[in-house]
């Protein structure tokens, strides 16, 4: 799906420094037409900085970024004409009505006059804001605002959409609805680059890039990331108060990695079938009886926690 002449976004060795702080550290990837690419990572990982560089809002310190085939440092205005952007912070005008905001962005993006009303109609229907056209934006609830912002970002039919944590602070119902919209756009051929720190949302993407401390530490379909990145099998160990035994489990034979998940421990082992009974016996031998261990399918969260931990250890940084 990725790469080749059809790629809408090509990022190659991108670096962004703020003084001595490296916010983006040699990131490379590309996004195909109609692909929904997710940026997953903790706050401060450099997701927003990357998106801002691709929108031409920040200049990269090194590396190259082509958006719609145009170098973002050479002709940022040509890039801006072809993209839609939703910033992390809501940035429509609160004292203007829904319609006034859309007219404004239609004008600024130069949507042809004879198409404008039709595009606005489309955006309002898509955002489910019919009947609220004359409401001031300040009076709208969070999910509605978010959909309106998306509507404003696609008024000019951009080929590429950048959405920076579009669903943060929005209720689950609205989040689902928002993702449906993103998939509709993807199906129409719009490339969508969306950042999130909700791990479950990564499952909705065609491909996911895991980003932490400015580095891209893994890239693949959610399925690939869950399976192959781990390179091992996963056991869920359950017992009351088992979280306190994390250090003990770490030292058990055949265990690569352990993390706390709710009230259980998730242990990464070389072979689930043999290690599950061995671990139960090992715990009992250390005075923790009655624990259960069963093989589970790794989730995105398992994969993410493992990969971030591995990347951190590889760099010798404190966790």
């Amino acid at each position, binding site marked *: 799906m990725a790469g080749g002449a059809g790629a809408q976004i090509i990022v190659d060795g991108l670096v962004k420094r703020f003084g001595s702080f490296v916010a983006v550290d040699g990131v490379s990837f590309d996004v195909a037409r109609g692909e929904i690419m997710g940026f997953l990572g903790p706050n401060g990982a450099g997701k927003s900085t990357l998106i801002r560089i691709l929108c031409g*809002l920040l*200049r990269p310190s090194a590396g190259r970024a082509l958006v719609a085939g145009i170098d973002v440092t050479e002709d940022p205005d040509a890039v801006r*004409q072809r*993209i839609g952007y939703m910033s992390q912070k809501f940035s429509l005008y609160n004292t203007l009505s829904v319609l006034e905001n859309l007219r*404004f962005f239609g*004008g600024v993006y130069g949507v042809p006059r004879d198409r404008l009303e039709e595009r606005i109609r489309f955006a309002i229907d898509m955002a489910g804001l019919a009947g609220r056209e004359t409401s001031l934006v300040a009076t709208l609830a969070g999910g509605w605002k978010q959909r309106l912002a998306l509507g404003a970002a696609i008024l000019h039919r951009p080929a590429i959409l950048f959405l920076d944590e579009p669903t943060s602070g929005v209720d689950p119902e609205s989040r689902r609805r928002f993702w449906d919209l993103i998939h509709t756009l993807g199906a129409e051929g719009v490339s969508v680059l969306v950042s999130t720190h909700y791990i479950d949302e990564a499952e909705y993407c065609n491909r996911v890039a895991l980003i932490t401390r400015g580095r891209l530490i893994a890239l693949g379909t959610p399925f690939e990331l869950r399976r192959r990145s781990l390179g091992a099998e996963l056991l869920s160990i359950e017992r009351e108060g088992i979280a306190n035994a994390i250090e003990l489990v770490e030292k058990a034979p055949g265990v690569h990695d352990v993390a706390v998940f709710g009230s259980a421990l998730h242990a990464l082992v070389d072979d689930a079938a043999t290690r599950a009974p061995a671990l139960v016996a090992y715990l009992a031998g250390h005075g923790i009886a009655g624990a259960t261990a069963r093989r589970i399918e790794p989730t995105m969260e398992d994969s993410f926690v493992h990969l971030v931990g591995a990347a951190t250890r590889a760099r010798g940084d404190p966790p």
Partner: protein
Amino acid sequence: MKLRRVKAIAVKESLQIVRDPRSLMIALLIPLMQMFMLGYGINLDIKHIPLCTYDREMSQQSLGLLKRFEASRYFTLRKTAQDYAELTRDIDDSSCTIAIVIPAGFSQGLNDAGTGTVQALIDGTDSNTANIAANYARAVISGFSGDLQLQAIQRRGGTVQTLTPVDVQARVWFNENLESRNYIIPGIVALVMAIVGAQLTSLTIAREWERGTMELLVSTPVKPLELMLGKLLPYFAIGMLDAAICLALAVFWFDVPFRGTLATLLFTTSLFLIVVLCIGYYVSVSIRSQVGASQVALLLTMLPTILLSGFAFPIDQMPVFVQGITYLVSGRYYVTILKSVFLKGAGAVELAVPILCLALYAVALVVLAARSFRKTLD
């Protein structure tokens, strides 16, 4: 440049202004308030100087002299003191600026020796007022002595030469009654325009940064020049409305004679408005906080216009070095133009130099403001 985008921004900005009571208030009420406050507050004519008298003689002549003080429009009698202590107190607490003391034996001296002395105690804190008070007091007293001489000569049956050998026939042009208000008010119009103009635009870019709307705006294809024009247009309209209010108040409320043409007035006012709007815009771009930008804009416009525009303090009385600096103050040209248009009825030809200077200033600031905005978050 696309007019479509300029229009979109101008419409959006106008809607925001209309829905933001604070900016509307700055736009319309502040100039009114300032015109009244400054128009009445700043008055360089000294009349009705508070006067205190202490008559130690209470003779017909001493009372006659004091009557003349009371009758003068330059003095207002505040108090008749009974001793020196009371007099001193009145000057100390500023209830009077000048005190006239007539000594005991005043009329006797006049009758016997033909000469008398009157004491004037003047509060010199404000040297200008003190000077003027002393001069007015001298004038009242010399009028009194002149009449005394006349009476004395007439009593002796003599004739009086009524012609003064050399007389000045002074005729004042342009401000016939030497009303300081007539030349201060046009200056105040310039001052109010400078303050309000820069205030209007000082918030416009900073507000978008503060509210986070700028991030989206710079991600659109809008060009810096389009953004500036779109943002300045609505404020230009408001600024011209403010100018109309101020100028109408000057003519119809403060009765300043208007002898020029409306065309000259409107043309030069637009030029000055462009200058101050661009100052505010430039500050707003440079300082991304509304409070900071508003304060800097106030400082940049109010101080130079008050001190260095010549609106109240004559430029030719300043040290040469300071005079040089005044050429950098846009208000200087507009104040010159306004005073001449109002009082002298000067037209574009007579005012070619200051108009040209103001126009150059406007062009320079438009360029500066347009180049200041960078579409980046760096």
